[in-house]
């Protein structure tokens, strides 16, 4: 049984990777592996080791292959690791490929009947009689399929040195206190653990050792973080249509609001949510609610944004607030609906026909998902326009460790809204007059009494008094003011995070690319003595800090997760004078970005 492990010997020759390796688990979708994988990840987290988990799932409810990648890293690098150190093969269908892609020396835990040890000589194989163990540990045949996955948690846990008490805690947490399920799963883990201790050759290559780096941290996904931000921002109307990877943002919000936004006296909610018939309708309801004075939002992904684009143009042209969360997935079309991509940069920047530029926010971590979601409502109302919060599947649906969020103190910014009193004092109010010279007019809300303030909102040409107009000068004045308003936003949106090391070799990235960029920069410095400066973009429009960074760098590597260099296209448009400095670092295969990809491409440019 352990012959292959003994024969290979590779493990003994390599040094032990402590708190610094990756595990990939190949299973079948719908087999309950999600719980097992989360328990593994959570246990490492509870042992104080920085960890990230990425679920690579198919667009399918049950039956198709799925993978889960866990990366533990003491230094806190949580981007996907390019190479897998331990593979757990539970899916016969993909097992051969799963083994074929491993780097030499990797460990493989596999279901014994698959006989994977015959495939390669340079790996360390650990066959496990899963079926036997399941039958022995779980009396209910119905549950065998689910419980089988918990066995590998026990086997791998024992081998990697996980603390079984922490595993048990992780199970109760994951199963939310359901006593029966907890008992069954713990029995399975225990069976795996005991079998492994008695039968599996001990390995010294990969180990988890208790640390204290995750103390006080939370584990959350970006969608839940955005949902919390929206709830604390007092969102009043959610109109949405289900789409992966955005659905769980709305669903989390509905759950949170159920808990925290009900009037205790009546049990009625201060938050309305409607699952609309499609994205055309979601966008319409967002605008209707924003027009009437509510904080409104929707959640969607690329196909939905495409459908919404006519409405978004209406919102931009008629100046109505609304927040559009776009959790991007791999497009175009249905694309890879359960894989990640920064593929909607351009459509969100310019969504709709005619001349349009929108304010976009790009959170790069969990705290920012929360903060930017909160802030987006202030910005939407301040600028009376649709705002995009752009994340992606990697941020939105994967689990990330984070410091607990800080409470957003202070008052909501409800923007320039005139009530009855103010209207009485103003002589000749016009809905679209630029009174303050910042491009932002004053609005009124339907239902304001006093007989003043009514106006007509129209998607056709209008003058500052909101009257229909096709006059060339009225049209030009209007679209020029909208552009001026966009420029005003430069002083309001989150500034980029700039790390100027003195190096004139700059990297510009945004959103979910951040962890991989950080790691790549450290590695380039350590391995090749190559220093870089870094600007992490957090919003559109580009701010003065972006101008300064681009001006001061000799070369700028723009890192993004799409084929067409969409962010670079925007940069070229706004900064044609720097066109020669830009170099594109691209990643677009549906997987999350990893440091190696960035490092390889930049190194090739530097040769």
């Amino acid at each position, binding site marked *: 049984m352990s012959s292959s492990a003994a024969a290979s010997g590779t493990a003994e020759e390599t040094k032990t990777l402590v708190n610094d390796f990756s595990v990939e688990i190949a299973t079948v979708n719908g087999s309950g592996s999600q719980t097992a994988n989360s328990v593994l990840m959570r246990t490492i987290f509870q042992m104080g080791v920085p960890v990230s988990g990425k679920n690579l799932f198919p667009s399918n409810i049950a039956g198709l292959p799925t993978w889960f990648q866990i990366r533990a890293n003491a230094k806190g690098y949580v981007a996907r690791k390019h190479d897998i150190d331990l593979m757990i093969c539970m899916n016969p269908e993909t097992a051969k490929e799963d083994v074929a892609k491993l780097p030499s020396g990797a460990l493989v835990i596999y279901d014994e009947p698959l006989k994977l040890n015959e495939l390669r000589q340079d790996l360390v194989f650990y066959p496990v009689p899963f079926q036997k163990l399941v039958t022995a540990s779980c009396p209910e045949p119905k549950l065998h399929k689910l419980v089988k996955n918990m066995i590998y948690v026990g086997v791998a846990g024992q081998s990697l040195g996980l603390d079984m008490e922490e595993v048990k805690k992780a199970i109760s947490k994951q199963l939310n206190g359901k006593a029966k399920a907890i008992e069954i799963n713990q029995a399975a883990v225990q069976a795996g653990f005991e079998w492994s201790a008695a039968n599996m050759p001990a390995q010294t290559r990969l180990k988890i050792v208790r640390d204290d780096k995750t103390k*006080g*941290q*939370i*584990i*959350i996904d970006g969608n839940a973080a955005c949902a*919390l931000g929206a709830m*604390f*921002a*007092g969102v*009043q*109307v959610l*109109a949405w249509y289900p789409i992966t990877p955005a659905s769980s943002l709305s669903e989390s919000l509905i759950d*949170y609001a159920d808990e925290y*936004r009900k*009037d205790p006296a*009546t*049990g*009625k*909610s*201060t*938050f*309305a949510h*409607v699952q*609309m*018939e*499609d994205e*055309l*309708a*979601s966008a*319409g*309801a967002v*605008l*209707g*609610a924003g*027009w*009437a*004075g*509510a904080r*409104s939002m929707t959640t969607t992904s690329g196909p939905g944004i495409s459908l919404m684009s*006519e*409405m978004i143009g*209406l919102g931009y042209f008629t100046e109505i607030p609304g927040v559009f969360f776009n959790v991007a997935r791999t497009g175009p079309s249905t694309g890879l609906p359960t894989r990640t991509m920064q593929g909607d940069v351009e459509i969100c920047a310019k969504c709709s026909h005619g001349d349009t530029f929108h304010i976009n926010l790009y959170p790069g971590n969990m705290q920012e998902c929360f903060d930017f979601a909160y802030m987006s409502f202030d910005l939407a109302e301040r600028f009376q326009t649709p705002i995009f919060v752009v994340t992606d599947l990697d941020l939105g649906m994967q689990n990330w460790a984070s410091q*607990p*969020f800080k*409470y957003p103190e202070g*008052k*909501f910014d409800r923007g320039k809204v005139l009530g009855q009193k103010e209207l009485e004092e103003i002589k000749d109010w016009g809905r679209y007059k630029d009174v303050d010279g910042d491009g932002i007019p004053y609005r*009124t*809300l*339907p*239902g*304001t*009494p006093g007989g003043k303030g*009514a*106006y*007509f*909102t*129209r*998607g056709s040409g209008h003058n500052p008094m909101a009257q*229909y107009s096709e006059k060339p000068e009225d049209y030009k004045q209007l679209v020029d003011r909208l552009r001026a308003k966009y420029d005003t936003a430069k002083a309001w949106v989150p500034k980029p995070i700039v790390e100027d090391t003195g190096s004139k070799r700059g990297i510009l990235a945004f959103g979910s690319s951040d962890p991989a960029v950080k790691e790549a920069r450290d590695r380039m410095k350590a391995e090749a003595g190559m220093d870089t400066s870094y600007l992490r973009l957090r919003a559109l429009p580009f701010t003065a800090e972006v101008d300064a960074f681009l001006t001061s760098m000799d070369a700028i590597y723009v890192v993004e997760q799409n084929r067409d260099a969409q962010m670079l296209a925007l940069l070229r448009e706004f900064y044609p004078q720097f066109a020669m400095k830009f170099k594109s670092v691209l990643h677009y295969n549906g997987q999350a970005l990893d440091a190696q990809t960035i490092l390889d491409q930049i190194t090739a440019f530097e040769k």
Partner: protein
Amino acid sequence: MTTTAPSAPTNKLGMTKQDYVGSKSTLCAGCGHDSITAQLINAAFESNLEAHMVGKYSGIGCSSKTPAYFFNQAWGFNSVHGRMPAVATGASLANRKLINIGVSGDGDSMSIGIGQLVHMIRRNVPIIYIIEDNGVYGLTKGQFSATADLGSVLKHGSVNELPPIDPCTLAIELGCGFVARSFSGDPKQLNAILKAAMAFNGTCIIDVISPCVTFNNHDDSTKSYKNAKDHDFPLHELGFVQYSELENVEIPAGEAKVVTFPDGSKVSFRAMKEDHDPTDRFGTLKLLHEGIEKGEFLTGLLYVNTAKPTIHDTTHIVDTPLVHLDQAALKPGPEALAECMDALT
């Protein structure tokens, strides 16, 4: 507040009829849509409608331009083609006290916007939704719409070979609580229907045959003034008495069927063509289908059901309009965030 001579009659709010008008219409002279606008103004004046509480919505089309021509003191929203129902839905959620009036066309509602209309009815968004039905796309110069009758002929000769969609049977099928049909050339009936709709709480679908004098008013058109006049069969003589007027106007018992709205207003139906019960859904559908087979269009308040929950009930929102809630009511405190964070450690 009033701009006309002091002698002009005022309603209970002290408003004159002039206070309910809008900008000057830019539609073709004789367009049916303008007659509907006129009746909206009359009905609002007579119903003491608080204009500042009105949200006027529309899609795109000649019909959809008309919200600019009534209620200058109301807030208007001319949105995109066929997508006004969602806009009104959002506004109604934000401020449940708004009185919503939507004006659409047969193209706007029965083609590009049919999905949104269907779902607005299903959710029972409180709105008076008027379909100004001329069987053509007026604004894009006379193409057939989906309400054009089979065999109907366009001005330039093309014949419609597809069956029409009837907005009223569709609305009743979907469970709409207030479904009416009228004719822009019958101001009296339209006035009564609009006033009844103003007292109703829920989606009101009102299909108003409204001839397009420019593209669809020739003798071979089924939506011409002549054809509409010849084939219009009012089901009943409608009476509407607002709750506040009930003391002065008594409905004679036994003569008519009377439906009482939740606000206390009463609608009376005195049978003309048949003894039709407007609360009988299956009976109404049967009657309408028979009418369609015979080439008649039956007008009146076809179907009423005052007992349906609205979107405000099914979303379980607070009674105060959401837009009137302040930050204290909308933003949970630090202890709520701490609790959420604890659950995630």
